[in-house]
Structure formats: C-alpha cells, structure tokens
C-alpha cells in the first residue's frame, strides 16, 4: 500500500519551487524518491532549496526562468526532459499576491495584467508545455495547479481572486481534455499558509492571531503542502482527477460567524 505513495525515479517539476509552498512541496517530493526540478526567477533561492534537498539525500536541480513567458516555460520543460529523461508530474505552483493598494475602480491595467500573468497565464503555459511532453511520451502523467481560498469568495484581492478562480476552471477543463491521454489534473487550494518559519516572536504572535479566524485555530505551515503534493503526484491518487483539495484548517467550510462563536439555543 505505502509503495503507491513512492515517487522513486519519477521526474517532477515544481514552478515557484525556490521558496514558500513550492519549497515545501519540492522537499516532500524529493523525500518520496522523485527527481525534482524546481523553477523560479530568483537563482539564490533556487540554489538554497536545491542544496537543502541534496543535503537531505534527495535529487534536485533548478531552472531559472520567468513563468509568464511561454518560451521560457517551454525551455524549462525541455530542460527537465533532458535532465531526467521525461516528465511525470508537474506542479504549476508559481504565482504572486501583489498588485497595488487601490480601490477596484481605480485599478490600473498594468497591475491587473501583471497579477493575471503571474497566476493564470503561467499556470496555462506550464500545463500546456508539460502536457505536450506527457502526451507525446504516451505515458501520461499528472498536473497539479495551485488555486487559493481567495479564488472562491469575496476578497479585496480582486485580480488575485479572479486569477485563482481561473486556475480552478483551468483544472476542471483540462481534467476532461487530458484524461484520454492518461493525464490527471488536480488542484490545491491553500487557505492561510505561512510561506516560511516565523522569523521572531512578533511574527509568531501575528500568525497566532490570524489563526484565531480558522477552525483549526492556527495558520498552515509551508511544509504541510508536502504530503498532499506527494499524494497527488503519486499512484496513490491514480483515479482522482478534476478535483480541488482545500488545505485550510477548515476555513472555507466555515466563515458564517467568527470561528469560535458558539450559538446558544437548546431544545
């Protein structure tokens, strides 16, 4: 049974893998036996994460590039195939919060386009390039997109929420289109998840306060993405496709009242 969670010898690509949730997934995937390629813009972060994985006995390499540029995305997938002889699982994880602090009706085109490019276009390009390799190999594979609790409901992050809603639709659309080619497509929707370990007590306190809004009474940790990533990349989820996995401590399920609120009526 546990063999089905193993990824030994599998080629796995994680965009945005230098830091944050991508780093957490890359660590776990490598620990499960995968040959991991992480991609991002910032070389120092890539180098650090690759080193961490190698220090832990895993196999990792990196590709430095801009995921909003389809030519660079295609080059990334080619580099992965060259390095590891194929591509079995691809996490279109790269994204950004960003934008500008302005009312919706004041938002500039440039900010909207930037957020959309980094969260939605990048996912589209990555899935497109990865699926092409998977289809042509005849072996299929698995694609994992990253949406967000912010893609579900009202939020002041208009462009981000719109883009993440788009990622959710991309997942569903592709699950049908790619299923005949033995490619599964699933999505991970994190709630509030810390991008790194807290730097100091002040940050720890701030997170504890944020956690008060979540049924689990805490925010998620960056490394908690790992086991879900392994499950979705592996044969353990071989009949699962087109699904979205919230990893949010119960946040999306609640939200009707403050998380700790108890109504009083008894029979």
């Amino acid at each position, binding site marked *: 049974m546990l063999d089905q969670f193993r990824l030994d010898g599998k080629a796995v690509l994680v965009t945005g893998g230098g830091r944050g949730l991508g780093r957490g997934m890359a660590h776990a995937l490598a620990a499960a036996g995968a040959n991991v390629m992480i991609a991002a813009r910032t070389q120092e972060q890539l180098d650090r994460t690759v080193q961490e994985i190698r220090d832990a006995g895993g196999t990792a390499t990196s590709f430095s590039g801009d995921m909003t540029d389809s030519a660079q995305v295609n080059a990334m997938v080619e580099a992965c195939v060259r390095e590891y002889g194929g591509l079995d699982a691809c996490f279109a994880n790269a994204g950004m919060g960003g934008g500008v602090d302005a009312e919706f009706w004041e938002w500039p085109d440039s900010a909207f386009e930037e957020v959309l490019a980094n969260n939605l276009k990048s996912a589209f390009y990555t899935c497109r390039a990865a699926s092409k390799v998977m289809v042509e190999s005849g072996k299929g594979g698995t694609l994992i997109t990253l949406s967000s*609790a*912010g893609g*579900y*409901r*009202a*939020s002041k992050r208009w462009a981000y929420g719109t883009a993440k809603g788009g990622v959710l639709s991309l997942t569903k659309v592709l699950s049908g289109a790619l299923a005949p080619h033995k490619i599964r497509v699933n999505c991970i929707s994190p709630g509030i998840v810390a991008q790194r370990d807290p730097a100091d007590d002040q940050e720890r306190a701030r997170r504890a306060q944020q956690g008060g809004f979540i*049924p689990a009474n805490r925010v998620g940790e960056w490394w908690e993405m790992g086991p879900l990533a392994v499950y979705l990349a592996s044969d353990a989820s071989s009949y699962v496709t087109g699904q979205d996995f919230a990893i949010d401590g*119960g*946040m*999306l*399920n*609640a*939200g*009707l*009242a*403050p998380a*700790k*609120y*108890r*109504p*009083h*009526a*008894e*029979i």
Partner: protein
Amino acid sequence: MPPQTDYFDLTGKKTMVVGAETPAGGAIARAYAQAGADVALCVLTADEAVMRARVVKRDIEAMGRKASEYVMDVMLGKNVQVTTRQVAKEMGGLDIVASAPDLFVAKPIEKTTDMELARVMQVNFSSQFFIVRTAAEEFRRDHRPGRITLVTSVLGERSMIDTAAYASAHGAVYNLVRAAGHELARENITLNAISLGWMDYMDDRIDTSDEDGQRALRFPMLRRAGRAEEIGPTAVWLASEFGSAFITGQIIPIDGGLLQHQ
C-alpha cells in the same frame, strides 16, 4: 412564443404554506396573497403557533384573498398527506406549496442525545420530505404544473460550532431538493429551496449581546441581517407558473452575501 402574461402573477392560484407561524412562512404566505393567491396556512403545533398564523390570516384577508388555517403534524407523513388532501379539497385544488419548518438547536455533538437528533432531523428534514412527497401526489392528481419551495439554511453547506445536528438536517434538505427535483422534473413539477443566512429574528442562533454574535452579523456582504419580508419576492418568483418554469433543483440563498464571506 413566450406567454403574454405578467410572469409573477399568482391570481387564482391555490397555495399552501407549511410552518406559516414562522417568520419565513408568514412572509411567504403574505407575499403569495399579495401576488393574488389564496393561501392555506398550516401550523406545526396547536398552541401559540395558531395565534401567530391568525395574524397572517387577517393580513391576507385584508388584501381581499382567502386564507384558512390548519394544524399539520409534520412529524407524521400520514398526517401531512391527510391534511394536504383536506386543503386541496377545500380550496378546489393545489398549485403551489411552500414549507418553512425550523427547529434550531445548538449543542456539542457529544452532548446531543439520540432523541434530540431524531427530533431535529424530523422537524427540519423529514417534514420537508413528507411535504414534497405529498405535494407531488396532489399535483399529479390534477396534472398541474406544481411548484414547491422549501426554506432551508446556509448551515446546510457551511459549518459552525455546535450545529452538527441542525446543519446535517439542512444538508439533507439541500440534497432532497436536488434528488427529488430531478425526479419530479419530468412531471412539470419544480422543486427549489430558499437558503436563509442570518435573519433579524434569529436571536436563537445569533446572540447580539455576545461580541462574536455582533461580529457574525457583519459577515454578510451587505453587513446586516435580513428581514422576513425580504424572503417574499423570491418565493413569489419561484412559485410563479411562467417566471421560473425552467428552474428546478436549485438552492437560492437569501443571505446578503453571507456565503461569499471567507
């Protein structure tokens, strides 16, 4: 060709509202009457509920419509059937049924007894099942394009502490609407639900003397609780013969955007 008519007019329609003593039921009954219908008011218990329904009855009669009162024991499918038959006979048929029973209970799951669970399921869910089953039977008898509207709660799809029994019952109502809506669609019977968020009369579940209770009332996008009379127009739309004829199996939230809250 679309029918040349006022889409939302209920003139001449025979309607039955179960749980007419509840704020939602009363609002729906008044709205049906305002739109031109006669209304049979069914109350769940033969106590002060009757008095509350009598106020609704007077309002409806003041509009020049007919209203009558019945006591319906919704815990018993047979009683629902017999009372509905009586209503249909006395009104000369039945076109529209709404049902708004509501028994809220808040208890930790480990303290909820078997009996309490059974009662919450019966009042909130089984009653709705009986009403759908019986209403369909009446519509079928006269080959009428029936309309059924159930009142449910947003707790049917989202969580809150201490509501496991109540929320489960309403989750069951959600799927009753989908499953029975599918089943009845080929008979020209539509079945939909109105899912209520925080209403200003729900002091059993939102205690405004509690700071968190007050905060909960700011969770809807409109940043306020709803009012019973805000349910009426949606109920009329869902009951109308031509206004919603191709809509079935749907849950329509009247929640001020509460379900969009993170």
